C-alpha cells in the first residue's frame, strides 16, 4: 500500500476542504453559467447548449450512481474474519490456563 504524500503547506496557507469545494464549485459553476446562460450574441452552437444546460443535474445523478455502486461493492466485498474469531477463542483458552498457572486469581 502506498504511503500518503503531502506537499508541505503552512497551516495558514492551506485551504479547508469546504473552501476547496466552494472554489471548485464556483469555478465550474461560473464556467457553466457563462456558456449556458450567455446572451444571444455570445451563445455557443445549439447542440452544445442543449447538452450543457442539464449537465449539472446529469453530473449529480452520475455521482449518486457512483456512490451507490461503490458503497454496494465495498459492502459486498467486506471481509468476514471467521478464522480470526476462532483463533481468538483458542488464544483466550491458552491465556486463561497460563495466567492461572502464573497465579492470577479472578
Amino acid at each position, binding site marked *: *500500500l502506498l504511503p500518503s504524500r503531502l506537499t508541505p503547506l503552512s497551516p495558514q496557507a492551506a485551504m479547508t476542504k469546504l473552501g476547496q469545494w466552494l472554489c471548485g464549485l464556483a469555478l465550474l459553476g461560473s464556467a457553466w453559467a457563462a456558456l449556458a446562460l450567455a446572451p444571444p450574441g455570445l451563445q455557443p452552437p445549439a447542440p452544445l447548449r442543449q447538452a450543457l444546460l442539464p449537465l449539472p443535474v446529469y453530473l449529480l445523478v452520475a455521482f449518486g450512481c457512483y456512490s451507490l455502486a461503490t458503497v454496494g461493492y465495498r459492502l459486498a466485498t*467486506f471481509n468476514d*474474519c471467521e478464522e480470526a474469531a476462532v483463533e481468538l477463542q483458542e*488464544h483466550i483458552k491458552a*491465556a486463561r490456563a497460563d495466567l492461572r498457572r502464573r497465579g492470577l486469581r479472578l
Partner: protein
Amino acid sequence: MAATGPERVSVLLPTYNERDNLPLVVWLLARTFSDSGIDFEIIIIDDGSPDGTQEVAQQLEKIYGSDKILLRPRAKKLGLGTAYIHGMKYATGNFIVIMDADLSHHPKFIPEFIRKQKEGNFDIVSGTRYKGNGGVYGWDLKRKLISRGANFLTQVLLRPGASDLTGSFRLYRKEVLQKLMEKCVSKGYVFQMEMIVRARQLGFTIGEVPISFVDRVYGESKLGGNEIVSFLKGLLTLFATT
C-alpha cells in the same frame, strides 16, 4: 530518520470495566512481544473502574513486573484523548501503540505495524479493516452498510489518504503522537478521524496494514442514532475546519 539504538514499544491501554479482557490482552501482548523479540511496556490507564479492573491490573503487574506493566489510573471517566495524554507522560518507548482493550484488536498485528513502519519510515501506521485482507467479524449487514457508507462519506469529504479513518488500532512515533495530541480536540470516533486529518496537515506519512476486528460486543451495544448524529456533526466540523 531511521531509528538508531534500542527500540521500545509503549502500548497505551485506556480501560473502563475491562476486568475480564485486560488479563487476556496483556497476556497476548506479552506473548507477541517476546515471540518477536521486541522490547515493550504496557501502560494501563484505568478510569476508576468499579468492577475491579485495577485489582486485576495489580496482579498482572506482579506477574510481569512493574517495568513491563505500568499502572497509571485516574479517578474517574475522563475520556480517551486525555487518557492518551496522561499515559504518554510515562511512556519510555520510541513507538506508541494505541488499541482497544476489549480483544477486538489482536496484538499479533503489532509486529506487522513495526515491519511496515520500517519499510517506509512512516510516522504513523494505521490498521485498516477496509483494505487487503482486513475485515470484521460479528457485524450484520446493516452494521457493515453503515460502516462502509460512513467511510465513503469521509473519503469524499476529507480525502484523508488513509482507508480506515475511524479505526483505533495504530502505531505512532512518539514525537508524532505528542504533536498530534496538542492539536486534536474532538471526542469519540471523530477524535480518531481528526488525528489522521491533522497528521496529513502536518505533513506526516501514514502507512497501512490490514487488520481483523473481532467484535464480541456488538450484540449488546447497537450503533444508535445518537452516535450517527454525533459522527456526522464531527465529520462536517472537520470538513469545514481542516
